[in-house]
């Protein structure tokens, strides 16, 4: 019979909409509204997994996000497989495939169960004490075995095809949790007209009201009040109601992160819609109403499938119409389980209730149960559970005076509902850095002093009475919204009596009892006692030594029991042992949610120049430089990098090459004090630079090391056109703004980035002038009128240009600045005009070779953040007359002027065909023992087609004193020899540049 444990009626499932999914290949039937857990239970399936360490059979402990045991791998289609899903929160839907984890060969028969037999050895921390001999076995044997045994499910193997989204949102009041307190808070806040976001982790808002069949709220059944309240909230434009949305992180300044599961519950997967969405909410005020988690009781074999939390039995029965067993024993130390027992009885189960408390401490509840025909055993402890893959009975015994345990009795059953009291969900409060206080009456930590603009309400604050929850919620919502209005809501009283118990009293040998505290990580009470015995007294030490609370549920069901046991062992109060600090996330959050849209093309912007499309169309290969993608070289068919670059290099020196230099940073520096500002920022002098002239500028950080370089043109007395390196553009502008705004208030200067206003077409080579002459208007290009390092404004192809006569190749060259949107047209016109001259497009690799032939440095290649101007032979640029500039003082520090600094030199390999590796290290004597004394390293190295040999630049200790010396340079296999030379390999007198 299908769904034998489904009740005949009731529950919030939609019996008109049956669904089917699979569990370990077996078809499971359920209804729309089921979770995987409720549908499995409806079909009598309790054994759903194996524990982490001992591979013990495990079932479903809870109905909610605190589930530690029922973890399944869920398959939603190709690329959509992921492990460790809590069966209690995965919404069942057609077509879902679910699989149990951590067993071999099968769930039913698991070889790993041998670990359970070895459990006397595999106690807490056993691995710290062994696996050390022989030493080599650790890497080869022990660790691989440990690792293979660890882990739960299997990681996804394919890329995830799903979409993830992000949303920044602001509200006046964020309410977390839509149970009675949260709803009351949202209502109260919403009435003020303020912006309210109400988030609830479940698919259906309502919290405990969803399974409360007996209480009345405001004179109506709870469910009716809930429906009306939701309708009311839904109708308000100022309210955003977010079901399936977990508030998982409370960050600084009321920045709260929510994870919304958007489409996992939809049969079709939701089409283009995102799977999940990260809400980053900045809230004026936050109301935390996330409820509480029930504690298991700690007794022998309390982990058997069929043993679950008492309230979960109630939820499965009332909300899902599923009876988890036909004969259910409730074991409790508090009143809440009595309601669960009554509801289970009403749903058709045979019920017994065992209460550790004495009859006198129990209030009216036992009588109420007995009147309903339920046997109630007060003053009884639980000695243990029977059964292995499914609980078959509970052994209980009365506790006499002085704690003597009386004759035991076996209560046959197929399900146990246990309740060790409640733990308020203070996770977000603690994350907000609020201070928790211990409330002995509740045996729980509750929110104390707030650190941020938030307040807690309801069970999250340790308030369990329904009317009190509603009142607290109403007050919290109103206060958060700044309203004085309060609306009292009458409600059925809730029985809340409770006495804490650490470990259920037993007369068994304590070293033999295996009573689980952390179900997933297989931590027993005796493990915790062992840790204490070994000196781990701080709760953080106990956690780390035993791993209690470190599993995927992060101790929601186990932390308080563990803490209680430690406190008991040390005879301290709970706060004396400390409580752990809660860290995000409240429940696990997919990486996808956190990444959102920042994948693939949106991972990081790809910056391209106006010429990029042309370069792509002409076969360029590209390299990443900072965020930019730059043309690296332009291979012709059949050419590799080497061949293409050799051709490009020769073309520039023999004819003319064209290069896209648009990525260079540009800053327009304007103002009456512009020249003085330049003087302070750069090592060079600027006052006497004539308008229309350029200068190569070098800039230091205050620590004296080179920050950036670039050609600067003086456009007018009060205007400089500054260029920076590609990667340095933003950094340099920020550096300048910082000094301008915070140090030199006396200067009247304005900085504007024009990096992307101007595209830059570099035209280099002896024929460069001939190519552009016909295209340029308004500028006399003759060498006399327009010498090297001059700048003129005019037009090219009718487009306004700032034309620089500069060269990074050592050839006659121009850098044609034109407005970006017109650069492609100008580029194409130059290509057309250059065709008769054999114009050749070249990329960054050729640019690097050409400048290296001339010994021009590249900041970031010859320099690395520890290099001074003198190190690279540019000390001569320092304006002697300037009293100060940024970095000047640092150049006088003792170790910066000392001998032995690495200096830029050229290296000529003895074998001209050998091209050194960039990064290769240089030594004087390759025969010396290791560690060797390294003199420096190769910073740049290329095959130079123009020199017909390899060339290299290097930084070498006192290198300028070593001219002509033979040094030894590392190669992948050993060393090669090279001779120190001036760092110029071509046209040392610099005649070509002035052509």
């Amino acid at each position: 019979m299908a769904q034998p444990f489904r009740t005949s009626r009731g529950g919030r499932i939609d019996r008109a909409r049956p669904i089917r999914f699979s569990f370990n290949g077996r078809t499971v039937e359920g209804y729309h509204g089921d979770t995987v857990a409720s549908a499995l239970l409806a079909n009598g399936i309790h054994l759903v997994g194996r524990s982490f360490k001992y591979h013990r059979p495990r079932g479903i402990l809870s109905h909610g996000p605190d589930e530690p045991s029922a973890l399944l791998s869920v398959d939603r289609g190709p690329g959509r497989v992921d492990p460790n899903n809590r069966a209690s929160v995965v919404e069942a839907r057609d077509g879902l495939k679910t699989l149990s984890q951590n067993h071999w060969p099968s769930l039913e028969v698991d070889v790993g169960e041998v670990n359970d037999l070895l459990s006397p050895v595999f106690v807490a921390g056993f691995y710290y004490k062994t696996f050390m001999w022989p030493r080599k076995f650790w890497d080869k044997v022990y660790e691989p075995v440990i690792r293979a045994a660890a882990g739960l499910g299997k990681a996804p193997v394919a890329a995830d095809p799903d979409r993830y989204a992000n949303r920044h949102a602001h509200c006046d009041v964020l309410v977390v949790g839509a149970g009675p307190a949260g709803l009351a808070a949202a209502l109260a806040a919403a009435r003020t007209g303020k912006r309210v976001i109400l988030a609830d982790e479940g698919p259906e808002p309502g919290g405990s009201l969803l399974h409360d069949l007996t209480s009345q709220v405001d004179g109506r059944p709870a469910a009716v009040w809930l429906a009306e309240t939701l309708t009311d909230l839904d109708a308000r434009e100022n309210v955003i109601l977010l079901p399936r949305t977990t508030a998982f992180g409370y960050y600084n300044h009321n920045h709260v992160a929510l994870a919304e599961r958007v489409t996992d519950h939809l049969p079709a997967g939701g089409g283009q819609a995102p799977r999940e969405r990260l809400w980053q909410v900045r809230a004026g005020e936050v109301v935390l109403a996330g409820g509480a988690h029930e504690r298991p009781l700690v007794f022998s074999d309390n982990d058997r499938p069929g043993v679950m939390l008492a309230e979960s039995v109630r939820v499965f029965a009332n909300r899902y119409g599923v009876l988890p067993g036909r004969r259910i024993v409730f074991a409790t130390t508090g009143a809440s389980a009595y309601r669960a027992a009554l509801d289970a009885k009403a749903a058709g189960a045979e019920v017994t209730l065992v209460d550790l408390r004495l009859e006198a401490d129990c209030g009216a509840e036992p009588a109420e149960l007995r009147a309903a025909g339920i046997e109630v055993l007060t003053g009884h402890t639980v000695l243990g559970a029977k059964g292995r893959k499914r609980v078959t009975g509970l052994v209980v015994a009365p506790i006499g005076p002085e704690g003597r345990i009386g004759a035991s009795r076996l209560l046959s059953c197929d399900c146990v509902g246990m309740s060790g009291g409640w733990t308020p969900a203070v996770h977000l409060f603690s994350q907000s850095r609020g201070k928790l206080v211990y409330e002995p009456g509740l045996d729980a930590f509750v929110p104390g002093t707030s650190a941020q603009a938030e307040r807690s309400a309801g069970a999250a604050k340790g308030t369990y009475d329904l009317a009190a929850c509603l009142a607290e919620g109403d007050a919290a919502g109103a206060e958060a919204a700044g309203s004085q209005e309060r609306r009292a809501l009458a409600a059925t009283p809730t029985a809340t009596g409770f006495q804490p118990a650490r470990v259920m009293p037993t007369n068994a040998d304590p070293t033999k009892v295996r009573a689980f505290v952390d179900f997933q990580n297989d931590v027993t009470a005796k493990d915790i006692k062992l840790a204490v015995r070994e000196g781990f007294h701080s709760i953080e030490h106990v956690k780390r030594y035993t791993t209690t609370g470190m599993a995927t549920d992060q101790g929601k069901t186990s932390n308080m029991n563990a803490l209680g046991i430690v406190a008991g062992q040390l005879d301290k109060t709970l706060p004396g042992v400390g409580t752990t600090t809660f860290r995000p996330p409240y429940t696990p959050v997919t990486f996808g949610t956190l990444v959102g849209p920042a994948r693939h093309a949106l991972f990081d912007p790809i910056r391209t120049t106006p010429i990029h499309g042309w370069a792509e169309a002409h076969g360029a290969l590209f390299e990443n430089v900072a965020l930019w993608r730059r043309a690296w070289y332009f291979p012709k068919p059949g050419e590799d990098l080497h061949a293409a670059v050799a051709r490009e290099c020769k073309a520039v020196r023999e004819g003319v090459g064209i290069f896209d230099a648009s990525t260079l940073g540009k800053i327009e520096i304007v103002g009456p004090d512009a020249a003085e500002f330049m003087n302070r920022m750069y090592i060079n002098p600027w006052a006497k630079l004539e308008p229309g002239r350029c200068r190569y500028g070098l800039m230091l950080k205050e620590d004296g090391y080179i920050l950036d370089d670039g050609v600067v043109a003086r456009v007018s007395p009060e205007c400089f056109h500054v260029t920076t390196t590609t990667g340095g553009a933003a950094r340099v502008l920020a550096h300048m703004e910082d000094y301008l705004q915070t140090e030199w208030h006396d200067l009247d200067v304005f900085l504007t980035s024009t990096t992307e206003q101007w595209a830059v077409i570099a035209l280099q080579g002896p024929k460069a002038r001939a190519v552009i002459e016909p295209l340029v208007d308004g500028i006399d290009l003759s060498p006399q009128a327009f010498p090297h390092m001059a700048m003129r404004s005019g037009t090219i192809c009718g487009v306004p240009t700032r034309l620089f006569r500069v060269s990074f190749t050592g050839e006659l060259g121009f850098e044609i600045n034109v407005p970006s949107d017109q650069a492609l047209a100008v580029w194409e016109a130059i290509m057309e005009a250059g065709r008769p001259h054999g114009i050749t497009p070249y990329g960054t690799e050729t640019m690097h070779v050409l400048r290296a032939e001339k010994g021009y440095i590249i900041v970031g290649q010859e320099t690395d953040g520890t290099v001074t101007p003198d190190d690279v032979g540019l000390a001569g640029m320092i304006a002697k007359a300037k009293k100060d500039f940024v970095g000047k003082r640092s150049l006088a520090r003792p170790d910066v002027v000392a001998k032995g600094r690495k200096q830029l030199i050229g290296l000529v390999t003895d074998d001209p065909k050998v091209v050194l590796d960039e990064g290769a290290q240089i030594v004087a004597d390759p025969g010396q023992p290791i560690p060797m004394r390294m003199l420096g390293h190769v910073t740049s190295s290329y095959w130079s087609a123009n020199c017909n040999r390899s060339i290299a630049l290097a930084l070498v200790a006192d290198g300028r004193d070593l001219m002509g010396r033979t040094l030894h340079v590392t190669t992948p296999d050993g060393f090669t020899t090279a001779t120190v030379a001036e760092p110029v390999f071509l046209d040392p007198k610099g005649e070509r540049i002035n052509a």
Partner: protein
Amino acid sequence: MRRFSLTSLLSESLKGHQGWGRQWRDPQPKAEYDVVIVGGGGHGLATAYYLATVHGITNVAVLEKGWIGGGNTGRNTTIIRSNYLYDESAALYEHALKLWEGLSQELNYNVMFSQRGVLMLAHNIHDVQSFKRHVYANRLNGIDNEWLSKEECKAFCPPIEISDKLRYPVLGGALQRRAGTARHDAVAWGYARGADARGVDIIQNCEVKGIRRDASGAAIGVETTRGFIKAGRIGVVAAGHTSTVMAMADVRMPLESYPLQALVSEPVKPVFPCVVMSNAVHAYISQSDKGELVIGAGTDQYTSYSQQGGLHITTHTLDAICELFPQFTRMRMLRSWGGIVDVTPDRSPIIGKTPVRNLFVNCGWGTGGFKATPGSGHVFAYTLATGTPHAINAPFTLERFRTGRLIDEAAAAAVAH
């Protein structure tokens, strides 16, 4: 000290493990010690251990304001490697790595040092040059580090995506095979147990509130929440709180303390065989013995002692992880946390003397202190025992910031031009 071994474990398992005693004592502080170490993290405990074992100085106290190993020791991503560029750093971290290799046996405590290899990925031509510079320098310093093609990277670590379509394609990587990870807590506990067995007093819940100095200015002891403790020499090893502690002796430090975040995923079966670091996209990832993916994020931009950082730091890190390892998008973040890292101007540590006589400091490890734990403790013990720096920590002075002899590994990695 009761020796740990398979035999002792088995014999205890027959007795319900009732025979295990404390791994270290919980002594009352004495009035006076030869050496007082401020800070019960891995570095401080290692220092005490080597003072006792190498230098025979056992009248030592380690003062910890909370619980030992509760600072950065228990909060880091446990990456251990020694393939540093500069001779000074290489010597320091290689010294540590050699100690790591025998540490479990030395301490008789399994610290689970796992030499699974650390692979640093290159994503642009500049990275390639920089990594080759490291590989060559390491070779001449006797440190293993090899260059791998991108295909070799993929073979070594299959989850890496090496498609050219990536925003920042993998061009290759530098692999140090001897590098790896260790179990961070065990390092602190192992050193504590070893030091304790030799007479060192490990005093938890004892916060240092002041440093007492005599008329000459020399440090003579510490004021603590458990009273004044006289000390011959004081070693401050209080990562994350160095500025505060040193200020008690009126020493101002070139340090800033930043939040550093890390996170782990839910545990899964073995899927990630090594450690991968990618400086270019800011991703640091390995898999722990327990099966969790351990992921290091970056520092926040502001100084803070809150041990909490912004969500955007985490998301930025995961962007990079999912770009490099697209199969992990459906994995879930289980736990995230923050530590406080003390950062020096050159991001290298300061180990040695201070302007105050008898006061020594070991600090400024930034984001990378865990890997140095044994070496740091070893050379700092030498410094405390002899009053002069060991050859290995001699370059890591406070003085270098005055003279300009900085050891700037991060600057050497530089930035793309």
